[in-house]
C-alpha cells in the first residue's frame, strides 16, 4: 500500500471517529450548525480524496451521504432519529469499505445501492412538492422496498458529555473539549504521527536508562565529585522518562467516544431508555492500556444496559425516572486511573448471586452460606457466572465479567464492584498509568531482596526486638497482629518462601510488617528488613516461574541485584486470607480517619519535641545535606520535580552545612495545596494526642497537644513562608551551571 493511501485511511478513520461522536451529539441538539458542519466535512473529505485515489464504491457512497448532509446543513430537513440511524449506517458502510481497503488494498465487490437509495430517499421529506416529485421519480423503484424501522416510539435521548446534568463538573469540561476539537485542525501542523512500535522501543530503552541511572546513583553516592553529575543524570532521566511516557498518553475520550453509539444501539435493541453521562474524558492513559480497557469497558456498558437498567415500565413502577442513567467516569488517583461505569438500575441481589453460584457449582452451599455481601459480589467475576434469567444476544453468556476482570488484571489493574439493590451498580476499574515502571518498596527476606508494589502497601509497622516476643497473638496456630484494635492476619515471607520454617519474630533484630491490601484482602507481610523505595522496571518472568504464583515479575535493582516482584493478591489467595467484611472495613476506615485526625508524628528538633499532624505527613526523607539547595538564604528541596521550602527553625540544616554528606531528615508535609519540608533531628514516634483545654474557660488551645504526657508544640505548617514567586528556578540553575562550568 502506498503512503498516500495509508495516509488517506488514517485520516478518514479519524474523520469517521469524529463523525460518530458528533452524530450522537446531534440527536440531542439537531439544530447545532457546528456539529452538522463537522459531520459534513468528514464525509466531504473522504469523497474528495477517494475520487483522486480511484475508490469508486467509496466515492459513490460518500457522495450520497454528502447530499443528505448538505440538506441537513442548509436546514432543509431536520435530523430526526431516522435520519441519524441512516447516517450511522452510512458511517458503518464507509468504515467497512475502509477496512477492506486496509486489508486488501481494494474495496471489494459489494453492493451499496440499498444504503445509497435509503440516503437519497431521506433527502425528500421536508422538500417542497416539486422537489419531492423529482426525488420520488428518481427513486420510485426504491421507495416501496425501504422500511426504516425505529423500534422505539418514545424519544430516545442519549446525551454525551454535552448534556449538563451535573452542572459543576460536566459543564466545565464541555467547553474545553469543544475547543479542543476545534483546535485539532489548528494543531495538525505541529504534530506528527509516530509508529507505536518505535514508541514501545523508546519506552524499553528508557526503562534500561532508569536501571542504569539507579546503578550509577548507588555507585556514585559516596563520591562527592560525582554528586552534581549524577544528580543531573537523575533529573534528565526523570524528564526523559516522563516525556516518553507522555508521548504514549492518550485521553480516555478515545475509548469513551465509542460509547454513545454503543449505548444508542443497545438501548434500541433492548427496549431501554438510558442517558449516558461522561466525565473526565481528558484523563490520559498509556496507549496500550487504553487499548486493553476497551473491551472490558464495552462489556461493562453492555452489562449495565442489559442487566442493570430496567425496562422503562419497570422503572416507572418502582418510582424511578423511566430514563436510566449510565455514567462513565475517569479520574486520575496518584499513579492510577480509575474508570467507573455506574448505573442507577436494579442492582445485584446478593441472594441471587448466592443461589446462582451454588446452582452453577461455583461454590459449595456451606461456603456460600458463610459469605458476606461483599464477598458474594466478587463471585460475579468467576468464569461461567451469569445471573441473567435469559440469555440475550447482548450479554448473558456468562463471559462478560470474567473477561472484564481477566483483561484488567492482565495489565496490573483491579476491578471492584459495588451494588445496592434497587439503586444501581458501580463497576470500578483501577488501571495503572503505565505498565513498565512502578514504584515499589524493596524488602529483604531469606537473604534476598524482593520488590513490593507500593500500590498494595497501606502502611508499615516496625516491631523492635524487645517487643518481638509479645507482639503476635495466636489463634489456633494462626498468627495475628493487633493493629489499632483490629486483628490483622500475618503472613511470614520467609516461611512462605521456605516452607517448614517457624513463624516467629526475631528477638535479636528489628522486624517489619508490611500492611497490604490486595483486592480487599488485608494482611500483614512480615519481612526481615526494609531497603529503600525504588522505581522499578518490570520484567516479565518465564511461564515456569509465573506458575509458582507468588511473583508477578522481576526487576533489576540499583545495586544491580535482581529482585522478584511479589504479587500481594496471589499471596493473599495462596495463604487463604479472605476478603474482609464490608462492615468491618468500613468501620476500620472510619476509625482510621478519626484516629488520624488526632494522631501526630512526634519529632525531635534540636533537643525539643514537636509534633506534625500525621494526616499531613506525605513522606519522611533522609537525604544528604547536598540535596538541599538555597534560594538566597532560604533552604529548598527538589522533591519529585517540585521545589518545596524547608523550614529550619531548629538550625539543623545550618549545623549540617559543614559536610555535604551529612544526612538530614526532612518531613515532607501537605499544607493545603502546597508541600513544605520540615528539617528535624529525629523522628521519634507516631502517637495519639489529646487536645488541651484551658483551665476554667474550657477553650481548646491552639498549636499545642498532649503527647506522651508532655505538652508538645504542633508545627504550624501554614506558618512556613512561601517561596519567592519567580526568581527561584533560574537562580538555582545558575548555581549548578557555574559549578559545572
Amino acid at each position: 500500500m502506498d503512503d498516500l493511501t495509508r495516509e488517506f485511511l488514517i485520516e478518514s478513520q479519524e474523520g469517521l471517529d469524529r463523525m460518530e461522536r458528533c452524530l450522537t451529539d446531534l440527536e440531542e441538539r439537531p439544530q447545532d450548525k457546528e456539529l452538522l458542519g463537522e459531520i459534513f466535512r468528514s464525509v466531504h473529505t473522504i469523497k474528495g480524496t477517494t475520487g483522486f485515489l480511484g475508490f469508486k464504491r467509496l466515492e459513490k457512497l460518500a457522495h450520497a451521504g454528502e447530499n443528505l448532509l448538505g440538506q441537513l446543513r442548509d436546514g432543509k430537513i431536520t435530523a430526526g432519529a431516522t435520519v441519524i440511524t441512516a447516517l450511522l449506517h452510512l458511517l458503518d458502510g464507509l468504515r467497512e469499505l475502509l477496512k477492506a481497503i486496509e486489508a486488501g488494498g481494494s474495496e471489494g465487490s459489494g453492493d451499496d445501492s440499498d444504503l445509497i437509495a435509503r440516503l437519497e430517499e431521506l433527502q425528500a421529506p421536508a422538500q417542497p412538492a416539486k422537489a419531492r416529485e423529482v426525488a420520488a421519480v428518481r427513486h420510485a423503484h426504491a421507495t416501496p422496498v425501504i422500511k426504516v424501522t425505529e423500534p422505539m416510539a418514545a424519544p430516545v435521548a442519549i446525551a454525551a458529555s454535552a448534556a449538563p446534568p451535573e452542572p459543576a463538573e460536566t459543564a466545565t469540561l464541555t467547553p474545553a473539549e469543544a475547543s479542543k476539537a476545534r483546535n485539532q485542525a489548528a494543531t495538525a501542523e505541529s504534530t506528527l504521527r509516530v509508529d507505536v512500535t518505535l514508541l514501545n522501543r523508546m519506552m524499553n530503552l528508557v526503562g534500561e536508562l532508569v536501571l542504569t541511572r539507579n546503578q550509577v546513583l548507588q555507585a556514585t553516592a559516596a563520591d562527592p565529585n560525582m554528586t552534581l553529575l549524577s544528580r543531573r543524570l537523575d533529573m534528565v532521566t526523570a524528564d526523559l522518562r516522563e516525556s516518553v511516557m507522555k508521548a504514549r498518553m492518550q485521553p480516555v475520550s478515545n475509548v469513551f467516544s465509542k460509547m454513545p453509539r454503543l449505548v444508542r444501539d443497545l438501548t434500541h435493541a433492548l427496549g431501554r431508555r438510558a442517558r449516558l453521562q461522561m466525565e473526565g474524558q481528558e484523563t490520559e492513559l498509556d496507549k496500550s492500556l487504553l487499548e486493553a480497557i476497551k473491551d472490558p469497558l464495552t462489556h461493562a456498558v453492555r452489562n449495565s444496559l442489559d442487566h442493570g437498567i430496567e425496562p422503562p415500565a419497570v422503572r416507572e413502577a418502582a418510582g424511578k425516572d423511566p430514563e436510566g442513567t449510565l455514567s462513565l467516569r475517569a479520574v486520575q488517583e496518584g499513579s492510577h486511573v480509575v474508570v467507573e461505569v455506574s448505573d442507577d438500575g436494579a442492582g445485584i441481589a446478593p441472594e441471587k448471586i448466592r443461589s446462582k453460584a451454588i446452582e452453577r457449582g461455583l461454590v459449595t452451599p456451606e461456603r456460600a452460606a458463610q459469605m458476606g455481601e461483599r464477598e458474594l459480589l466478587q463471585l460475579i467475576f468467576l468464569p461461567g457466572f451469569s445471573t441473567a434469567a435469559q440469555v440475550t444476544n447482548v450479554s448473558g453468556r456468562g463471559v462478560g465479567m470474567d473477561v472484564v476482570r481477566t483483561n484488567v488484571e492482565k495489565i496490573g489493574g483491579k476491578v471492584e464492584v459495588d451494588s445496592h439493590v434497587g439503586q444501581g451498580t458501580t463497576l470500578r476499574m483501577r488501571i495503572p498509568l503505565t505498565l513498565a515502571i512502578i514504584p515499589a518498596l524493596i524488602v529483604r527476606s531469606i537473604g534476598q531482596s524482593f520488590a513490593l508494589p507500593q500500590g498494595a502497601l497501606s502502611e508499615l509497622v516496625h516491631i523492635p526486638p524487645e517487643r518481638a516476643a509479645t507482639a503476635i497473638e495466636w489463634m489456633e496456630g494462626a498468627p495475628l497482629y493487633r493493629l489499632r484494635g483490629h486483628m490483622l492476619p500475618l503472613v511470614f515471607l520467609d516461611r512462605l518462601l521456605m516452607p517448614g520454617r517457624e513463624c516467629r519474630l526475631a528477638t535479636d533484630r528489628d522486624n517489619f510488617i508490611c500492611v497490604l491490601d490486595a483486592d480487599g484482602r488485608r494482611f500483614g507481610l512480615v519481612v526481615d528488613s526494609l531497603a529503600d523505595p525504588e522505581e522499578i522496571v518490570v520484567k516479565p518472568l518465564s511461564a515456569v516461574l509465573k506458575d509458582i504464583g507468588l511473583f508477578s515479575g522481576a526487576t533489576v535493582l540499583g545495586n544491580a541485584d535482581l529482585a522478584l516482584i511479589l504479587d500481594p493478591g496471589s499471596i493473599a489467595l495462596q495463604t487463604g486470607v479472605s476478603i474482609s467484611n464490608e462492615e468491618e472495613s468500613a468501620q476500620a476506615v472510619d476509625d482510621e480517619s478519626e484516629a488520624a485526625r488526632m494522631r501526630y508524628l512526634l519529632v525531635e528538633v534540636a533537643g525539643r519535641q514537636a509534633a506534625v499532624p500525621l494526616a499531613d505527613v506525605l513522606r519522611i526523607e533522609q537525604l544528604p545535606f547536598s540535596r538541599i539547595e538555597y534560594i538566597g538564604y532560604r533552604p529548598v528541596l527538589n522533591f519529585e520535580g517540585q521545589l518545596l521550602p524547608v523550614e529550619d527553625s531548629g538550625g539543623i540544616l545550618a549545623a549540617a552545612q559543614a559536610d555535604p554528606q551529612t544526612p538530614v531528615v526532612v518531613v515532607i508535609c501537605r499544607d493545603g495545596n502546597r508541600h513544605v519540608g520540615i528539617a528535624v533531628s529525629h523522628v521519634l514516634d507516631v502517637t495519639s494526642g489529646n487536645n488541651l483545654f484551658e483551665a476554667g474557660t474550657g477553650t481548646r488551645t491552639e498549636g499545642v497537644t498532649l503527647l506522651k504526657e508532655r505538652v508538645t508544640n504542633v508545627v504550624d505548617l501554614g506558618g512556613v513562608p512561601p517561596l519567592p514567586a519567580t526568581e527561584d528556578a533560574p537562580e538555582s540553575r545558575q548555581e549548578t551551571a557555574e559549578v559545572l562550568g
Partner: protein
Amino acid sequence: MSRSGSASHRKQKSESLVEVCSVRVDKTLFGIPIQHILEIVGSTRPQPIPLAPGFVGGLIHYRGDVLTTVRLRYLLELPPLDGPQDILVLESAGGIFGLLVDSVGEVLTVSSVDYEPTPSILDERRRALLDGAYKLKDRLLVMLDPERLDPARLGAVRAA
C-alpha cells in the same frame, strides 16, 4: 540447520560440517550447535528463586531482560556445584534462556560423517535430553538440543 543437519544426515551420507560449542559438565563433554547460542556469560551466580522447580538455576540479567536459567547438572542428576558457573544464553522456539554448565570450552567443527544417534541403552531421562553424539578423536561430543532444554518445555514435562 544444526539439528536438522544432524537428523537429515542419518538419511544422506554426504559429508557436511557443523560448528559446535563444547561445554563440560562433570566428566562429559557436551556440544551445542552455535546457531542457538546468543552469548556466553562467564562465572555468574544467578539469583535464586524460592519455590522454583529444581531444574531452574535462578535468574540472570541479560541485556535488559531477566532470563530463567536451567541447571544441566540437575537434569543429569548430578550433585550441584558450588561457586559461580558459566552460562550459555540460548535461543529456542519458545524464547531466550540461560543454561548453567561447569565450564565452556572451545568451538569445534565436526563432520556429519562422525555422527551417531543416541544409543537406546541410555535411561529415559537422558535420552529425552540428548541428540546423538559426534565421535571425536579420543572421546565423544554428546549433543544437546536447546529446544528440549527450554524451561517452558521442561516445566510442561514436569507437570505432565
